[in-house]
């Protein structure tokens, strides 16, 4: 449920490093906790995000039937690609959270920020400590 090649945040985003870019989405835990995702709002390509003193900016919004949740950008950089398919098929976040349900691709301005993210072992331990599955 948690691929070993990804990095994870405490807000349940994942990052896949692809050269000097990072692909970002929501983890299995996040999509399961949300339930049916019915709306996704993403930034336009070109938007800049900054992680300052470890604080992540909101890059988008995910809505389930009942709840509205922010999604956070764990890397500083510029959005270069956005998953437009989620506009019409938000359910991809539930169906394929590490594949077709990805959200944005961002340039990695500061590779050191990756060190602050959890690897799969740390993330699974974090989920266990939160009483999640």
């Amino acid at each position: 449920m948690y691929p070993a090649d990804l990095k994870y945040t405490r807000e349940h985003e994942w990052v896949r490093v692809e050269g000097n870019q990072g692909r970002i989405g929501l983890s299995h835990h996040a999509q399961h906790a949300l339930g049916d995702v019915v709306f996704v709002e993403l930034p336009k390509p070109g938007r800049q995000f900054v992680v300052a003193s470890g604080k992540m900016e909101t890059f988008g919004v995910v809505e389930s039937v009942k709840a509205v949740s922010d999604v956070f950008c764990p890397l500083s950089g510029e959005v270069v690609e956005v998953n437009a398919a989620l506009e019409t098929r938000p359910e991809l976040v539930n169906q394929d959270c590490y594949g077709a349900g990805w959200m944005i691709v961002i340039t990695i301005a500061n590779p050191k920020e990756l060190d602050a993210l959890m690897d799969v072992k740390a993330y699974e331990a974090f989920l266990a400590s939160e009483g999640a599955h």
Partner: protein
Amino acid sequence: MTTPDHPLKQTPLTAAHRAMGAKMVPFGEWDMPVQYRGILEEHRAVRSAAGLFDVSHMGEVEFRGSGALAAVQRLTSNDAARLRTGQVQYSALTTEAGTFVDDLTVYKVADDHYMVTLNAGNHDKDVAWIRDHGTGTAEFRDLSDETALLAIQGPRAVEILQRLTPVDLAAVPYYWFVTGQVVGKRAILSRTGYTGEDGFEVYMSPQHAATVWDALLEAGSPLGLLPCGLGARDTLRLEAKMALYGNDIDEAHTVLEADLGWIVKLEKGEFVGRAALAKQKAEGIARKLVGFEMVGRGIARSHYPILKGGERIGEVTSGAPSAWLNRNIGLGYVAIAHAAVGTEIEILIRDQPVAARIVKTPFYKRPGS
């Protein structure tokens, strides 16, 4: 929802819900299933086949004796005198200001016996209110702890329930009830619900709830029945424009403003809130609960501002994606000048005005109704 500082209350089926893998949430004081497999799937099951809901958290009280009708009449806005034995009525427990202490269903069990169903979240408040405002000579009793309630709803609900009861369900009209047996257990079978579908609500002793639940699931599953949580219950009732207490109706809005004038019977005589409602009816209401659908991309949520040409004219009380109509719909109070069907409005979503339109309600009406 505030986190209670004491253990959550459990229905007779709480353990069964957990065992079936339901996602449980605190709902007021109660530990309730919000969904089993998914809200959208459960919603569609109720519209296309059937759904089974545990709503045992609802409160039930009764008024008995020669003063029973007088007590109900004094406390509620609808005219309970019009009920025949075996009939159910939607009504409001009103404040002096004509706003909602709660919304209710009133059951006429006999000339000297009325049962009233209350919202779970209002139970304690309602019981205190009723005692404070006097029950006259009626004997008033709280039945909530001794009553479980299941709802089976959907186009195949009657067919499924009929397999488990000797009661001729076809002979029970909408908003009528009978006392009978379900899988040999004594129950009240009420042709009512909170989904916009045909179906029954079944009141019984808590000790029989698991037996009846299991039997309905077993009989219904081959016909497409799914167990459903409060999540689907909320989206279903919204499509049917049935008010949710705490969202669409509350102590701040009158029964007339909530567009429920049909449950205000001024001519029946004195009741709590009558003077305020009579005055408001004569003067006209300044705002009204309306239904809208999103034209632009976005989902309206409770408390989002409603705008007209950039000016605030009201506030959203309920909003959700409609799983059946594939539109994003909502309810909200707007100034009466802007309440007409067809009015173009905007919903302020994360500081962005998004186009919406006031539409005729209910959003969904079951075929043939």
